[in-house]
């Protein structure tokens, strides 16, 4: 007996092959179609902005942890790369380069590292960075570049600017163009087709669960449907509301961030419905044209409370009514 190898160790005894790095790599792969689409639609400048944003995020993460926090290096988990891509996807392609750097600095240093790094951030860093930039540089952040203004247009200053369909309803692109992303808007949000491909990849790889994206998008569709029925507008309104703005980008890639969304499926559905409702309220009644980022950041902050009410009951414990009865007896 003594010679046999019997190890006694603490749980967990079964380990998943999934690593943070592997999951993040899957998300990056899922973002590639949208990245290609943004390059095709908005030209080389879109790719340069994304590359710059990724480099800055990785650099800030590395240097802040090394020189100021003096903690272990977490660049290898690739989460900073995703923050960089997602933040770039939330910017118009004509944005000055230095603004991108400031947005990255805010996203990585203030939102992520000052709160403890990966897994500790209280809101999604990319959305935090986007909202910081939206509040600080509202002019540059809302002048959308028209698609196809020349592939090599790196200066960005001469690009024509047009309104996103959410702002102006005079010059609506066709539904097909909307689906393929041939419209003004942020880099990564326009091509719904590419975003859906990425989303399906993530679902197949089981990186994200469908609960948040589906409940988010369905809530927006339902509320917009009710609004259309009451106002008597055409059914097209619902489709345009779904395809415009950052709804798909937000629902698939940003609302599903692990550390800022609930764990249980019930909690995820509440989270998604909340995001959808806030988005609709801001789009229909607010003074801002787009509400996806604000809705996600608000629900991020509510996540601890959602977790508290959706904590599953441990197996074998009595129900609440029973406990109350026992207490009476």
């Amino acid at each position, binding site marked *: 007996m003594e010679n046999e190898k019997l190890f006694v160790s603490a749980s967990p005894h079964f380990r998943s092959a999934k690593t943070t790095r592997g999951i993040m790599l899957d998300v990056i792969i899922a973002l590639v179609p949208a990245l290609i689409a943004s390059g095709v639609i908005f030209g080389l400048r879109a790719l340069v902005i994304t590359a710059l944003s990724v480099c800055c995020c990785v650099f800030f993460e590395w240097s802040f942890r090394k020189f100021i926090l003096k903690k272990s290096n977490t660049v290898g988990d690739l989460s900073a790369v995703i923050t960089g891509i997602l933040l770039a996807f939330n910017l118009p392609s004509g944005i*000055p380069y230095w603004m991108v750097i*400031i947005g990255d600095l805010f996203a990585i240093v*203030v939102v992520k590292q000052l709160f403890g790094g990966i897994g500790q951030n209280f809101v999604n860093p990319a959305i935090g960075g986007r909202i*910081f930039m939206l*509040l*600080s*540089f*509202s002019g540059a952040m809302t002048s959308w570049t028209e698609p196809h203004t020349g592939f090599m247009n790196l200066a960005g200053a001469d690009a024509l600017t047009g309104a996103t369909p959410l702002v102006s309803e005079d010059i609506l692109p066709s539904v097909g163009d909307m689906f393929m992303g041939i419209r003004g808007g942020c880099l990564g949000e326009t091509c719904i087709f590419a975003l859906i491909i990425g989303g399906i990849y993530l679902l197949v790889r089981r990186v994200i669960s469908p609960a948040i994206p589906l409940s988010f998008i369905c809530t927006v569709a339902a509320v917009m449907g009710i609004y259309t029925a009451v106002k008597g507008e055409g059914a097209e309104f619902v489709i345009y509301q779904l395809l415009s703005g950052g709804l798909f980008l937000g629902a698939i890639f940003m609302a599903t961030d692990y550390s800022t969304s609930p764990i249980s499926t019930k909690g995820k559905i509440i989270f998604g419905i909340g995001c959808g409702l806030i988005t609709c309220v801001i789009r229909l009644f607010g003074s801002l044209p787009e509400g996806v980022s604000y809705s996600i950041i608000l629900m991020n902050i509510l996540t601890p409370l959602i977790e508290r009410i959706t904590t599953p009951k441990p197996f074998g414990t009595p129900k609440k009514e029973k406990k109350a009865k026992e207490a009476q007896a």
Partner: protein
Amino acid sequence: MAENKSLGKEFSKGIIKENPVLRLVLGTCPTLAVSVSVTNSIGMGIAATLVLVCSNVVISALRKVIPSKIRIPAYIVVIASFVTIVQMLVKAFVPALNDALGVYLPLIVVNCIILGRAEAFAGKNSIPASFLDGLGMGIGFTFALIVMATIREIIGAGTFLEGIDSLTKLFGVTGFTGFHILSQPVAMLTMAPGGFLVFGLVMAAANKLAERSGKPKAELGGCSACPMAASCAILNKGESCEAPAEKAQESKEGSAV
């Protein structure tokens, strides 16, 4: 213990070690509201320092006359009188500052720093010590405001010392209306979230500085970690903060038995 040395300490402690805003975390509301512009901060700092010094001296002089049961209303009456005087002076001589500070000028009455110093210091110490304590705390408040406002104004509004001529006019200097530094400022720093952000960062820096000089961190770590530990009445009696409540409970239980 040399008297002079301790008096000097009463003055210097308010500037970094026990800075009212950054270390004691008092007077946060005017700090966040006013630190958008350096000019407003200087004005607010001077006004609050005047009120603080005067009220500290008067309260210290009256400390044996004021009954301890109604000391807070008595302090407020003294403070409010000085705030009214300062407000009238500002209205008469620097009307632009009065407009810029708005409601925050009369709100000095309920500024925690002033009431806090009256309660924690002036009510128990001699007039010279209270005078120096008030002056040091006032300068500390002004210093914290100016540091925050410098960051917020330069980065958030792209200017520095904008509108300073409303203050320099008093000394006969006109024409200088501040620098223009950035053409494309980061506007969020002038908004409320930016204020909290800068406040947190400056506070972290002050903690670091105070830590280097051997003072414990201003954190939730019980009474000993509190920067006011030296002047705290409860600690000086050799009891911890929780002790009085526990004692009260014990005595109740004792009487029940």
